[in-house]
């Protein structure tokens, strides 16, 4: 897509907005609809949009393959360590009261934000890594073929 000037300009504008909306869905998920999974997919969609319009090399400068593949595991680690944190402080696995025993509600709040963050990280980078796997094998298409 070498000559699609309008697409490129709009994409540059939209990527920021989409990521911002993804972060809103992520961190406002306990008050409004949404949560880690939805936010992860939305943020990944921003990177995929950038990759489609600007080319795979350009998006991989921003988000290298190795980073996407390793960060996908990081999300599960954040989630599981939140649970282990509870065990260390003498509560059950994933019992968020451990985070703030005096204020169980606050503990629940922090715990939910943490695990949602873990889900969001994993989903974002898994989606990006899957897109890279597919797009990396794709033979380059001329615009005429579409």
């Amino acid at each position: 897509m070498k000559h699609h000037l309008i697409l490129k300009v709009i994409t540059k504008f939209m990527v920021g907005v989409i990521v911002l909306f993804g972060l809103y869905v992520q961190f406002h998920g306990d008050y409004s609809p949404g949560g880690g999974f939805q936010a992860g997919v939305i943020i990944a969609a921003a990177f995929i949009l950038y990759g489609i319009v600007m080319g795979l090399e350009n998006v991989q400068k921003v988000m290298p393959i190795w980073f996407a593949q390793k960060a996908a595991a990081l999300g599960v680690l954040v989630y599981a360590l939140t649970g282990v944190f509870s065990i260390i402080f003498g509560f059950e696995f994933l019992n968020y009261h451990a985070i703030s025993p005096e204020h169980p509600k606050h503990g629940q709040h922090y715990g939910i934000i943490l695990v949602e963050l873990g889900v969001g990280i994993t989903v974002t980078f898994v989606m990006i890594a899957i897109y890279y796997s597919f797009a990396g094998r794709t033979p380059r298409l001329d615009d005429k073929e579409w």
Partner: protein
Amino acid sequence: MALTLKHLFAVIMLSGAFSLVSAMLFVVMDAVDVAFTEAAVGAGVSTVLMLATMALTVRVQKETKKPILLPLVVVCLVGVLLIYGTLDMPNFGAFDSPAQAHLGSTYLNITYKDMGIPNVVTGILASYRGYDTLGETVVVLTAGLGVILLLSGLKGRKDKE
């Protein structure tokens, strides 16, 4: 229309549009979380992945000589059975439906008391059902690993040879 199309690009675009329409259906039924997911995954990411797959394979469906009568009958039969199945379901939004009457109302009552957050869906997913969500996250990671191993692994082997 999608039945008679041979150009896979158009079929993929139609399935993306279908996803978007079903996302709107979910919004109408107040399942906004599901609608988010359907719009982003169904209409967005999976359409892109289908296009990438099509770019790897072919763009036009092969002509087949097989008769289409039997598949058509089977599809119609399953459709009729599904519609027959919906006759027993409670009306849309009925207050005495099983989904509203048993566990749902309990969660609606206790979530705010336990956690102080208004979004019951998040409360159930992340706290009451934290184990399940951890499992789901691992499933997503495993799916990603599978695709990476299947699609990127071949390339590395080719480079070595």
